[in-house]
């Protein structure tokens, strides 16, 4: 069992730069939490605070209700997997995986059993006599994971473990991490800037920006009901289209375009008549069977889908992800329909939802 509680964590560096502001979260036993956000948002700093590699400036960190805020990293019973693998080049894979247990002076037979078991899980049995330089990037990352597994820690921490891998290997290793999580049922904290990793791996995602937590929720919650403009823009690929609009006469009026709303959408915006809003529409929620004219400037066929880029109204960029293979040419005009719409207050950038004023 490993429950982790991060309570009002702040990180302030010696030069008074604050990297993390009031981070609050309870991680349940066996949960895989992904911290996602752009570079410099404080996600790695948060992970390093949990690992004990960075001091916690303010707040409390509890592991199974035990305060470990001041506990040294080596006594926290957590294992961290780094982006650069951090393997010892002069040691074999077996020795690398056994190293932490050897330092703990565990019985050699016990070490052997644990290393073989971890190698079996990760499919590394045939590589145990090799040196890290003889392995591919994906295999090296698996060794790094194996080194964590043998320790049987309470919490696994991953700091952008797939960033050094090429796209194909990243996908394969991602699936392996998911399988590993299902097999070990361990509590894991995973840091990435890649939203695909976040959406596919996470039980819950923590989306961060500028040291602040923007939203914590399931992948679907973040995708479907983003709390604010940042989350809406960060989650989803291609990113959401945003337009400055005003809600008037039951429609959304933008510069050079007007969007019709359903009754339900009107009721959501009923308290915002005449206010400046931001309309968000995901490219996948746009279809080419509507009435809103868009002048196409690019048609990217991706196989199952086509990304159509164009201009709407007074030169507002719009990206639509259309199903199938389309062959629109530069200069063509198509008429689009916006499906699911997201509304945001322009001043606060917060989402406007049903019942909120």
């Amino acid at each position, binding site marked *: 069992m490993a429950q982790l509680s991060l309570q009002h964590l702040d990180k302030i560096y010696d030069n008074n730069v604050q990297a993390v502001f009031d981070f609050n979260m309870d991680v349940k036993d066996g949960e895989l939490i992904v911290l996602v956000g752009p570079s410099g948002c404080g996600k790695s700093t948060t992970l390093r605070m949990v690992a004990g590699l960075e001091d916690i400036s303010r707040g409390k960190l509890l592991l199974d209700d035990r305060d470990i805020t001041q506990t040294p990293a080596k006594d926290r019973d957590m294992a961290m997997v780094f982006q650069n693998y951090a393997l010892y080049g002069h040691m074999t894979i077996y020795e690398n995986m056994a190293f932490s247990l050897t330092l703990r002076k565990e019985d050699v*037979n016990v070490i052997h059993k644990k290393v073989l078991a971890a190698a079996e899980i990760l499919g590394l049995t045939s590589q145990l006599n090799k040196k890290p330089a003889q392995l591919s990037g994906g295999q090296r990352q698996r060794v790094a994971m194996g080194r964590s597994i043998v320790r049987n820690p309470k919490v696994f921490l991953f700091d952008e473990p797939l960033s050094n891998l090429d796209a194909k290997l990243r996908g394969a290793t991602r699936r392996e991490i998911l399988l590993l999580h299902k097999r070990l049922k361990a509590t894991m904290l995973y840091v990435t800037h890649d939203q695909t990793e976040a959406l596919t791996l996470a039980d819950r995602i923590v989306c961060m920006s500028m040291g602040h937590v923007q939203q914590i929720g399931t992948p679907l919650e973040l995708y479907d009901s983003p709390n604010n403009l940042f989350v809406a823009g960060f989650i989803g690929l291609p990113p959401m289209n945003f337009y400055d609009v005003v809600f008037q006469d039951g429609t959304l009026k933008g510069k050079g375009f007007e969007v019709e709303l359903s009754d339900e959408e009107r009721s959501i915006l009923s308290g915002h008549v005449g206010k400046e809003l931001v309309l968000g529409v995901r490219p996948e929620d746009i279809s080419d069977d509507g009435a809103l004219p868009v002048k196409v400037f690019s048609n990217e066929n991706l196989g199952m889908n086509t990304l159509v880029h164009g201009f709407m109204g007074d030169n507002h960029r719009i990206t639509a992800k259309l199903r199938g293979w389309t062959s629109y040419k530069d200069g063509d005009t198509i008429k689009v329909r916006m499906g699911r719409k997201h509304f945001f207050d322009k001043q606060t950038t917060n989402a406007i939802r049903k019942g909120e004023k």
Partner: protein
Amino acid sequence: MTQVLDDRQIQMDRMRYVKNTSSSRLCYLAILLNVLYFVSIYKSDMGSWYYQFLIGISIVYNLLFMLVAFLASEGVKNYKTAYSNALIILGAGQILRIFVLPMQAHSAVVKISGTEVPVMGNPQFIFCILMLLGSAACLIGAAVINIRKSKMLAEYESAKAKEAA
């Protein structure tokens, strides 16, 4: 009993991934003892007794000894039985060396101001012999351990191969 057998099997299985460090460490110790021997042997040089043809051969042999012992240490680390033979030969050589420089120097005398003085006194003679014997013991021990372990490993691997087949 089952536990004992299990542990023994684990130990053999472990040899597939862990190097024979006990043998290689004994080799390093043998090299160290040899170094202690040859840095001390000329210490009690009385007159010009040591300035003879043998001194050159001794120096060259010491260099060769260190090189071969080091290479053999790497070989036995990987359970290569052929290197055990080299270690046994080097070990026997260390014993034979007792009868060359140390014995001769111990029994030789030089005249200093008309007085006969032994070239090598008893304490140094014993020290040199102990270093050479120690070095020989380490080399032969390393060879024996390596032969035993590599045999066990080979048997274990062939049994595993049969099982797999």
